[in-house]
């Protein structure tokens, strides 16, 4: 039982006092920002990254992961109580969750959502533990051509399945790749796109782009379109779901978990796709579909499980292959690199404590979330009333100090301001910045692998399609592109992703 052995090892790492503490901080911060209006997990992780420089990598990653799935819990709380999704993934939960709250069953909805999330989290922790290592072992045998094609496939899938215009997403990936190679060329030492600026010689800092686009840009966008929040209910009702509730939710939670786990492994699929699909399935197979939209508990249970399963399974390609499947995972990869760890299949063998510690901490974090959140629900509800105008200057403070402290360079802060402006421009032009971030993270690695692949093949680019595994990746990329440009699929896609 190697799996068991590894899990025990992982729990040993994750249960050290320091790591439990960072896990706790992570899930608390995550829930907080999940509840608070106008600040998402991406901005928070970007903003808090510099604070983890002096923390050991394992603890830092555990905390950042905690923020990520903590935000998912927090987001569903606001969906149920105030009909406003704290995170985009929780939009679906609003439909029936809020109706349940209006019927005085907010407590039951919150509890089922927590139970569903916890169950999905547990199952997916096991899935990550089971599928991560074989995947990494396989990838360890890859040469540069395979690795280049794998990254290509990851980027293409992510761009194609992401929200918004496909053409623009692909273009943003390319833009990200270009931004990623700013700085000294590893091979020749030539300083590329540096404009004589000394601070750019090491490339554009990861934190600068992430904070600029996802914190500053998001604030500008929020200030441009303010949303009103009215807390409907302060009465949560009994937190204990009835036997009937539990019975009705069991099957939906199972279905949601399976669906979310499956969609979660695909790069680019956002949790909103998983939750949407889960909701539609429940509605379709229900004996009485008309209950949906009027407080059907299945409409909370299944999407919430799918949401958490998707979020958790996104870690599989990130941890085992070094390929980011979402914007948040790109941030996690960036965090790894900042801590001096080269992401990729080697992480599992070179840093087993990181790999298994993180997996175990996810389960511990999920457990903490259930235990902490349900009793503290009153506190989170009162936080909902914090006005945004007090929040965003605080975000700016954390962002500015975080960026400045990375290199003690004010140039970095100016650059972040520039990326804030670019971020808002991209949003207005309908260009999602997430694919850009994925490209940015993978840019240097892609160039390096392409260079090596071409050296191995004596400059023959067909090496990418003559080696079977590499060919498979290329074929999949092309297939996905072709399928997604077929008119029928294209229409359905825009129906779902909007």
């Amino acid at each position, binding site marked *: 039982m190697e799996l068991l052995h590894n899990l025990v090892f992982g729990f040993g790492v994750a249960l050290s006092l320091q790591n439990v503490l960072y896990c706790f901080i992570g899930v608390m911060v995550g829930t907080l920002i999940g509840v608070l209006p106008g600040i998402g997990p991406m901005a928070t992780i970007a903003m808090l990254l510099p604070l983890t420089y002096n923390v050991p990598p394992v603890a830092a990653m555990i905390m950042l992961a905690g923020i990520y799935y903590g935000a998912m819990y927090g987001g569903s709380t606001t969906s149920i109580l105030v009909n406003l999704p704290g995170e985009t993934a929780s939009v679906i939960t609003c439909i029936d969750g809020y109706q349940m709250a209006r019927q005085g069953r907010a407590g039951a909805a919150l509890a089922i959502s927590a139970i569903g999330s916890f169950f999905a989290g547990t199952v997916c922790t096991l899935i990550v533990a089971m599928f991560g290592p074989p995947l990494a072992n396989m990838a360890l045998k890859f040469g540069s051509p395979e690795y280049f094609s794998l990254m290509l496939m990851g980027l293409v899938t992510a761009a194609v399945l992401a929200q918004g215009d496909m053409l623009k997403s692909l273009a943003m990936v390319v833009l990200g790749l270009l931004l990623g190679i700013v700085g000294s060329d590893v091979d020749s030492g030539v300083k590329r796109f540096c404009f004589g600026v000394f601070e750019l010689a090491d490339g554009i800092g990861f934190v600068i782009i992430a904070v600029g686009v996802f914190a500053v840009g998001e604030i500008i966008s929020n200030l441009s379109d303010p949303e009103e929040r009215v807390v409907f209910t302060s009465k949560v009702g009994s937190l204990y779901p009835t036997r009937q509730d539990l019975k009705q939710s069991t099957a939906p939670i199972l279905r949601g978990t399976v669906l979310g786990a499956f969609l979660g492994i695909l790069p680019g699929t956002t949790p909103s796709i998983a939750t949407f699909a889960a909701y539609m399935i429940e509605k379709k197979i229900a004996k009485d579909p008309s209950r949906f939209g009027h407080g059907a508990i299945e409409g909370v249970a299944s999407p919430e499980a799918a949401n958490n399963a998707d979020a958790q399974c996104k870690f599989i390609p990130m941890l085992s292959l070094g390929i980011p499947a979402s914007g948040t995972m790109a941030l996690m990869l960036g965090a790894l690199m900042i801590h001096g760890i080269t992401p990729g299949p080697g992480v599992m063998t070179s840093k087993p404590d990181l790999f298994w510690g993180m997996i175990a901490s996810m389960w511990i974090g999920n457990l903490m979330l259930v235990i902490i959140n349900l009793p503290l629900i009153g506190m989170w509800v009162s936080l909902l009333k914090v006005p945004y*105008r007090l929040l965003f200057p605080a975000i700016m403070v954390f962002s500015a*100090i975080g960026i400045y402290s990375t290199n003690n360079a004010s140039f970095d802060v100016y650059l972040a301001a520039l990326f804030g402006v670019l971020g808002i421009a991209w949003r207005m032009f309908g260009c999602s910045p997430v694919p850009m971030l994925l490209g940015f993270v993978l840019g240097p690695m892609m160039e390096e692998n392409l260079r090596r692949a071409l050296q191995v093949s004596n400059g023959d680019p067909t090496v990418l399609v003559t080696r079977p595994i590499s060919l498979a990746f290329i074929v999949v990329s092309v297939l996905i592109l072709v399928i997604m440009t077929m008119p029928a699929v294209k229409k359905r896609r825009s129906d779902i992703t909007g």
Partner: protein
Amino acid sequence: MKSALGKNKDFWAGMMLIVIGAAAMFIARDYRFGSALRMGPGFFPTILSGILIAFGVCITAVGLRSGEKIQGNLSLRAFLLLPLSLVLFGVLMDLAGFIPALTALVFVSAASGREFKWGEVMLLTTVLTVASTALFIWGLGLPYPLLKGF
């Protein structure tokens, strides 16, 4: 429905990509292109710029055909003041020290919101400045002078 070019989001997105791609390609001329066997520092950027320009042309063409309008509103105030607050922070960190830089940052960024209440912003500025000084300077030991020249 077609809209004026100035508000056509696809047109602008395409133009932005073309401009960035062309600029990158122009700059990358100075880097040795090399050959496929030995990729020079100019190889990857030149190819990427080319792809970027191609995407830009396609998206511009889509824009000229369908002409969807730019998404969402833009608060000009936030668009100008928020980046400015960061720039001020950078300048003042170099010239005046941590406390003036933070004060300016909080004050100007608060001013970029819709509502601006003097009393509240003063209080917020004080609280955030004191809290950050405690957390970052005393707590995490960042080596920045609180006030330069004193």
